[in-house]
């Protein structure tokens, strides 16, 4: 348990997740992918979830959509607890939350034309007749910066990674969702294309009034899009706060290490901090107390004995650490 100090109990909360727990049974034990994570996202906000591979950020994003259903906790979306819904009700509820995946090329069916790819959600949900659907598909393609007449009859393999990600975004917006979960949407793309897709997501957020969960391993990437940032390590929340606070005075030693790992595009500047050593321990057998203590420069005996609770260090910045940096 890392506590609820950071929950805002606001009437504007679109999504409230409490004590979410996801575990996978594997030969030899149980992988504790997400352990008692709580957070809330207000309408129009973008919450970025940041951490290394294996920290549970993708599992967390999928658990919000009940893919699969979490092993514990609640996911309240617009007042409804998704974990209690029956199959058909859940299917309906999911139309309001859509997801964009990391690999834009393999997440699109190579045998479908662009028209079918973008129109499929409309067809599945029986929205409009053929003409209305065609008009909607064209509108979506225009909005993501693709020329409908040039692309409608083509297949996903004819496009570059950046264009495929545009198609994925168009498809995810077809049902006019109120929430978008973006799972590493730009990490498979060139830096020059990353900026285009990040800008596009910002535009779509404004145009469709979206609330977003943005999952990434790179703190530099989320900087441009986030209204709030949550740093995760080995299935737990380390720190949550505004981008300004997180970047200018990170309170958790793990956040500081993540910031220090971003390469500086300037040969005259070098990082003075020490890059994080080693790899995260196995999530099958996480360390006691604070899970980061095995790689933490400030770890003490207290860290192994007692799990740190989230507490406010500066207004709006919450950290789960016995020896915070601020």
């Amino acid at each position, binding site marked *: 348990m890392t506590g609820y100090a950071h929950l805002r109990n606001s009437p504007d909360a679109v999504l409230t997740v409490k004590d979410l727990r996801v575990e996978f049974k594997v030969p030899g034990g149980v992988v504790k992918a997400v352990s008692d994570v709580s957070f809330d996202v207000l309408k129009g906000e973008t919450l970025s979830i940041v951490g290394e591979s294996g920290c549970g950020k993708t599992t967390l994003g999928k658990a919000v959509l009940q893919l699969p259903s979490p092993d514990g906790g609640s996911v309240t979306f617009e007042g409804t607890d998704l974990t209690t819904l029956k199959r058909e009700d859940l299917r309906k509820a999911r139309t309001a939350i859509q997801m964009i995946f990391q690999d834009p090329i393999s997440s699109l069916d190579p045998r479908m034309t662009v028209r079918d790819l973008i129109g499929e959600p409309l067809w599945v949900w029986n929205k409009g007749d053929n003409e209305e659907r065609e008009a909607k598909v064209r509108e979506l393609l225009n909005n993501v910066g693709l020329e409908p007449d040039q692309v409608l009859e083509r297949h996903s393999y004819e496009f570059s990674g950046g264009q495929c990600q545009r198609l994925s975004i168009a498809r995810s917006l077809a049902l006019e969702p109120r929430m978008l979960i973006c799972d590493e949407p730009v990490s498979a793309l060139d830096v020059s294309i990353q900026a285009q897709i990040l800008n596009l997501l910002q535009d779509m957020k404004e145009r469709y009034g979206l609330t977003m969960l943005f999952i990434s*391993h790179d703190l*530099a990437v989320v900087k*441009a899009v986030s209204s709030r940032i949550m740093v995760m390590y080995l299935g737990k929340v380390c720190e949550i706060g505004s981008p300004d606070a997180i970047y200018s005075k990170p309170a958790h030693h793990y956040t500081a290490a993540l910031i220090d790992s971003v*390469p500086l595009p300037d040969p005259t500047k070098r990082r003075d901090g020490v890059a994080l050593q080693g790899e995260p321990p196995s999530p099958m057998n996480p360390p006691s107390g604070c899970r980061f203590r095995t790689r933490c420069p400030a770890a003490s005996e207290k860290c192994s004995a007692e799990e740190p609770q989230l507490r406010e260090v500066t207004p709006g910045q919450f950290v789960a650490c016995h020896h915070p940096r601020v």
Partner: protein
Amino acid sequence: MTALLSIKDLVVRFRTPRGLLEAVRGVNLDIPAGASVGIVGESGSGKTVMSRAAMGLLSGSNVERSGSVMFDGQELSSLDSVQVREYFGTGMAMIFQDPMTALNPVRRIGTQISEGLRVRLGMSKKDAMKRSAELLAKVRIPDPEAVLRKFPYQLSGGMRQRVMIATAIACNPKLLFADEPTTALDVTVQAQILNLLADLRKDLGMSMVLVTHDLGVVANNTDFVAVMYAGEIVEMAPTTELFANMKMPYTEALLKSIPKIDAPTEKRLPVIEGRLPNPTDRPEGCGFASRCSYAQDKCRQDRPELEDAGNGHLYRCWYPLGSTIARKSS
């Protein structure tokens, strides 16, 4: 400095159903012994094809290659694929972008690392295994003896890339090609791998070619940088000179598009509009003209040649940044 690897007028074309695809268009590049050279460009700029052609890894009836590749005093382009293989491992080695697929999934780590040692250096199985464990320790893998017996799927991405590096440096190559070695990895692991490569290079006195799309990666890890665009080198300079004194609008745009940790939040990022020109139908004039915010009529008509600004800074632009030639921003 003498060049360890010297590439002259390298041209690589692929015959495709859509026509002749010119992936590399006349590249000249010298890699001095002991140096670290960055090659930077977007997907499709020809950076990977160029490094593979330099190593003689491109073959097949649809490949046309011309130009010269001299390695350590030997002309490689006249050798066939069996002869050029003599240089792999001991002369040149390569690590690839995707550590997930570059290792053989059904063979143990130890067998894969020791293969080069046994074939190239003629070591016995026992000696090769012992040396493999030392190599794993050298790339900072904890408990190397246990890892030797593991299969690739039992290791994380970062660990696999370390195994790739151990395999590549096993026979003490003089030159290491690192093709996007950190693109598939987390930023924290990226920092570890880049540090590791820098330390190994010092230890072994190896030259390195670091191929990447991220100018941030080369800034602190190379002695000089070549920027590629549409199959050509468009700018080349010592790393500090390049970052202090950019001449090509493309290089500047590439740098600006990197998400920066000190950028303002919730603001639009600068982007490079448009895409690389179609490689089967290159435009006349400068390949970047259609995306360049400074382009003028001359850029669209005449192809610029590589110019030397003195101090070894080469660029391919009619209206370089910071020049006194009058130019209007469109």
